[in-house]
């Protein structure tokens, strides 16, 4: 798999936990690199400023075919903004982006208001604006384990059911890139693990790339080819195995550290000021966050 060593490793500086472990910093150093012609989406130096605040700073990334990329970061780190830019819903103020000519995106949005005033059955929703036939819809509902809700109203579904139905719609478009924005919101822990296993399995079968946004790392890690940590800029990007081998992994992913934010924070060799701008630290092991 190309790209599996992270974004433009040559131009990167090592992360706080040591070089050569696959987690590399981009810091926008590669924003002048040419587009990756093979990538589904190739972005260079994306920047967005809203109301005087930088939402995205010099973000460069490539998503290769068949690759599962997980985008993590704290709330308000610009994850959804980045997704909106990659989807073409928002124009970046700075930087450029290249989408492969045959790019076909299946999108599972973060919020799907199930309080629908619009009457519509699941089956109709899945057929809306698509060429798909009833048989294909039935098969897809079986694949996402939601056959039982086929004739139900979309407004009457539970959070987990709705999630799988929206996933089915995204998959029916036969995407080569599946984009999921925090798909596990409102789904319990085992439901989340099931969802990620399902996405991984479907990826293996259908061969699409996946961009998954999450603020939860411990479940995501296993399936991802690459993890990108975003806090307005790309803090860190690398293979999950490399991160997992790190001594701090056990500490961070242990039962006590179920909530995963701390996870990559401790890998950082810099902190952020109130405006979100990165500030390097003198010592790579001192992240200034008072780790016990």
């Amino acid at each position, binding site marked *: 798999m190309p790209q599996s060593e992270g974004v433009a490793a040559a131009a990167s500086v090592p992360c706080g936990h040591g070089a050569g472990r696959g987690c590399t910093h981009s810091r926008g150093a590669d924003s002048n690199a040419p587009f990756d012609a093979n990538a589904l989406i190739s972005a260079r130096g994306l920047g967005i400023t809203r109301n005087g605040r930088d939402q995205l700073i010099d973000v460069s990334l490539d998503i290769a075919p068949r690759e599962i990329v997980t985008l993590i970061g704290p709330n308000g780190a610009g994850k959804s903004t980045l997704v909106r830019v990659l989807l073409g819903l928002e124009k970046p103020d700075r930087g450029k982006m290249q989408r492969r000519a045959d790019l076909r995106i299946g999108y599972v949005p973060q919020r799907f208001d199930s309080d629908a005033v619009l*009457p519509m059955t699941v089956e109709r929703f899945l057929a809306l604006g698509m060429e798909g036939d009833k048989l294909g819809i039935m098969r897809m509902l079986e694949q996402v384990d939601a056959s039982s809700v086929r004739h139900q109203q979309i407004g009457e579904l539970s959070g987990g059911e709705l999630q799988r139905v929206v996933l089915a719609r995204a998959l029916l478009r036969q995407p080569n890139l599946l984009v999921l924005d925090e798909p596990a919101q409102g789904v319990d822990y085992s439901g989340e693990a099931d969802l990620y296993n399902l996405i991984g399995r479907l990826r293996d079968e259908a061969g699409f790339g996946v961009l998954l946004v999450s603020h939860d790392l411990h479940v995501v890690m296993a399936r991802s080819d690459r993890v990108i940590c975003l806090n307005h800029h790309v803090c860190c990007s690398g293979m999950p195995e490399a991160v997992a081998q790190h001594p701090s992994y056990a500490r961070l992913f242990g039962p006590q550290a179920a909530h995963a934010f701390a996870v990559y924070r401790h890998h950082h060799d810099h902190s952020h000021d109130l405006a979100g701008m990165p500030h390097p630290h003198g010592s790579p092991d001192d992240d200034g966050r008072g780790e016990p």
Partner: protein
Amino acid sequence: MIFEPFFLRALLAGLGLAAVAAPLGCFVVWQRLAYFGETVAQAGLIGVALGLALHMDVTWGVLAVALLVAALLLWFGRQKVVGLDSILGLLHHAALAAGVIATSMLKGPPVDLAGFLFGDVFAVTATDVTVIFVGGALVLAAVAWMWQPLLRLAVHEELAEAEGVNREKIRTVFIVLLAVAIAVAMKIVGILLVMAFLVVPAVAARPLSRDPERMVLLTALIAAGSVLAGLWLSATVDSPGGPSIVIVMSIIAGLSLSWAARGRSAARPIKD
């Protein structure tokens, strides 16, 4: 009386309007645009004054002002410090005040304000009926043409846009169609009741519907039934035509909502 030409014209106009209003009204309900439409309609009074001052059919004046106010609403909606409900509250009242001032300043004989506010269904001319049917057919054709993208935007705006639906274009065309419908319907039911013609039958149909197309059909049937019953009521007890139609459809909507609310726990607080 029922076979008098003026009554037949009222009937034709009402039924034509019922058909045109049904799909638009459903989208207004689905996209929570009821007060958007109400504000645009309210601005119609300025359009009436404009039409009278320029000695042309008030329909054109109403259409022009409706489009202007819709554009203003979309423009004000871009700021993020005041909610859309407040913007609607502002423009709604500003439009009414400006309309009353504008009509009061017209030279010549005093304007029959009540006629424009509540409409006069029995005063529609053969030309009005033609306008409703020709304009209505155009509006219906346009809605049919963009039915799929409209539905997809109504289900989930961001998802539809990510899948390639041109949100700006579809939205703009829809608002123009809404303004046309308001301008045409205004003569019959008046500025204050025109949105009732769009919203109320759709509300009545919603609890009884399980898919969008049937809801539109049911909306049209409820509106048409209300026109028949309302005009009959009007002829029987000599009540004003437009309000009689609106009260019939409102009773149907009330019954339908009561049916939907049966056995449910207390209502959630109203959002938006």
